[in-house]
């Protein structure tokens, strides 16, 4: 039986996040040919509807309200439920982002449904769909299926290939009105700490530092390399505990779990807890003075050496490459 699936399009700084297109691709598999409806929530988002359609949604509904400028679980919950009542979908897909993690359990509780969080792959289609997700921070994986009720999943950024954008696709973008009221939380202030807005969960390249960076200023060359590669900065617990950087950068079993295309570990020894957070990256480069460091056991390429020599050399070499290209 084909399924009608609704996909939440997540907007950041006025643009759709890549994970939303990945969520549409996941929805395609779950739908078994059923209709895919994109949902946009915000104070001014309707203009992004066509892009969701170009990536595979059949049509889009938007809920716009001044109270939806900032995400709150109450505001977005009310907006999403207004769409849900109108559309009555059989399946729902969100990105497993800060927003998706916060909102999806609320919706699942309202619907009294199951919810499969942090899906990295889907086997089979429609009623046969089996969802693969990491457990123990990626030390193992489980396959699960949903026995009854709404098929509700969140997909981990960077894992499911989006469909190719088709500029020729068009569809209906309609608005749904909702009363957004009685918000129990109000966002007072937002301080941006992430490096140039490249978020770790979606970054294609992560340059991570450990105790070997020796101080806050030791992250500077790593930042420069990350910027050059359009990537993000990360850190081991050791570096965070030593106050070299903010805990929001921590990668590992306590911390973020990341799967970029390229992970460069600089001055990180590779404790089992750190490996849990990054060992499923596609390509891993280790730079460490200690040839016995554990990190070399998972690295595709390793350089035994001082990161303060190696990283600046890499920066120069990559700059050269870009000039010659």
């Amino acid at each position: 039986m084909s399924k009608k699936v609704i996909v939440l399009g997540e907007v950041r700084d006025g643009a759709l996040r890549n994970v939303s297109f990945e969520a549409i691709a996941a929805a395609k598999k779950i739908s078994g040919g059923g209709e895919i409806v994109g949902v946009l929530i915000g104070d001014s988002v309707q203009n992004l509807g066509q892009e969701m359609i170009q990536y595979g949604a059949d049509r889009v509904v938007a809920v716009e309200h001044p109270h939806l400028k900032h995400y709150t679980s109450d505001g977005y919950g009310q907006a999403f439920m207004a769409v849900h009542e109108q559309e009555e979908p059989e399946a729902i897909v969100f990105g497993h982002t800060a927003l998706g993690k916060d909102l999806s359990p609320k919706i699942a509780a309202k619907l009294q449904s199951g919810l499969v969080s942090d899906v990295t792959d889907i086997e089979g289609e429609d009623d046969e769909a089996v969802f693969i997700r990491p457990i123990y921070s990626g030390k193992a994986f489980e396959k699960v299926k949903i026995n009854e009720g709404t098929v509700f999943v969140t997909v981990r950024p960077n894992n499911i290939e989006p469909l190719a954008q088709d500029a020729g696709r068009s569809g209906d973008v309609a608005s749904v009105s909702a009363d957004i009221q009685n918000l129990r939380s109000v966002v007072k202030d937002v301080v941006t700490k992430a490096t140039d807005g490249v978020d770790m969960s979606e970054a294609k390249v992560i340059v991570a530092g450990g105790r070997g960076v020796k101080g806050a200023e030791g992250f500077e060359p790593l930042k420069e390399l990350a910027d050059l590669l359009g990537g993000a900065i990360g850190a081991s617990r050791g570096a965070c505990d030593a106050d070299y950087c903010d805990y929001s950068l921590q990668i590992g079993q306590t911390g973020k779990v990341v799967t970029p295309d390229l992970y460069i570990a600089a001055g990180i020894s590779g404790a089992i807890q750190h490996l849990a957070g990054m060992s499923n990256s596609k390509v891993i480069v280790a730079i460490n003075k200690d040839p016995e460091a554990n990190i070399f056991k998972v690295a595709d390429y390793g350089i035994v050496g001082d990161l303060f020599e190696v990283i600046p050399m890499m920066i120069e070499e990559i700059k050269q490459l870009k000039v010659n290209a």
Partner: protein
Amino acid sequence: MNIYALVKRTFDTEEKISVQNGQIAEDGAEFIINPYDEYAVEEAIRVRDEHGGEVTVLTIGSEEAEKQLRTALAMGADKAVLINTEDDLDELDEFGASTIIAEYLKDKDADLIIAGNVAIDGGSGQVGPRVAELLDINYVTTITELKIDGDKATVVRDVEGDSETIEAQMPLLVTAQQGLNDPRYPSLPGIMKAKKKPLEELELDDIDLDEDDVEVKVERVDVFLPPEKQAGRVLEGDLQDQVKELVQLLRNEAKVI
């Protein structure tokens, strides 16, 4: 203030994971309080010390989870509740766990509920917000700061590296992110006192739930380990040449830059 901390017994983060008969092997593994829940317990104690009241730690599990509850009591919590599902349930998903917790809490008039933002085993991060929704109270996830003033809390929340300051109405459920505090180690007198603190054990019957009410919606069909990562190449030669080679490899072999 009536404060609840939700905790889960999990594998120690040092443990290697292996699979036996389609399940994660638990033989000989060390268990701890889920690290994010430790932040929750610590924060609950600090809030109580500042505002007065009582901290109750709550978990679902088997008798073995008593050890983690005693640890939380030794840190300074006042009471503990174990909802023992060992005889009633083979499986429990987030729907079921949140149903049980909310059913227990519904007539307890909690002012503040603190949970970890995620458990390091299942990793779904659902139970906290689900409980809040079932109790129809406000929630804020992944917090790094909490200040309570009357019927309002000022909360700082980590949002993928950005920090949001939120004014939130009480009663409130929050989930802890690392950076919220440094959990204390239980002191020796704390451990002694914990032995005498009340630890209540309940079963589903005691909270008027039936096995059918918490039947899993999501069923595990398989567990597997990721393919072992093969150690790659450690480059050799002059450092400058190694870097040249590395950049070429990343460009031409791995095709990632």
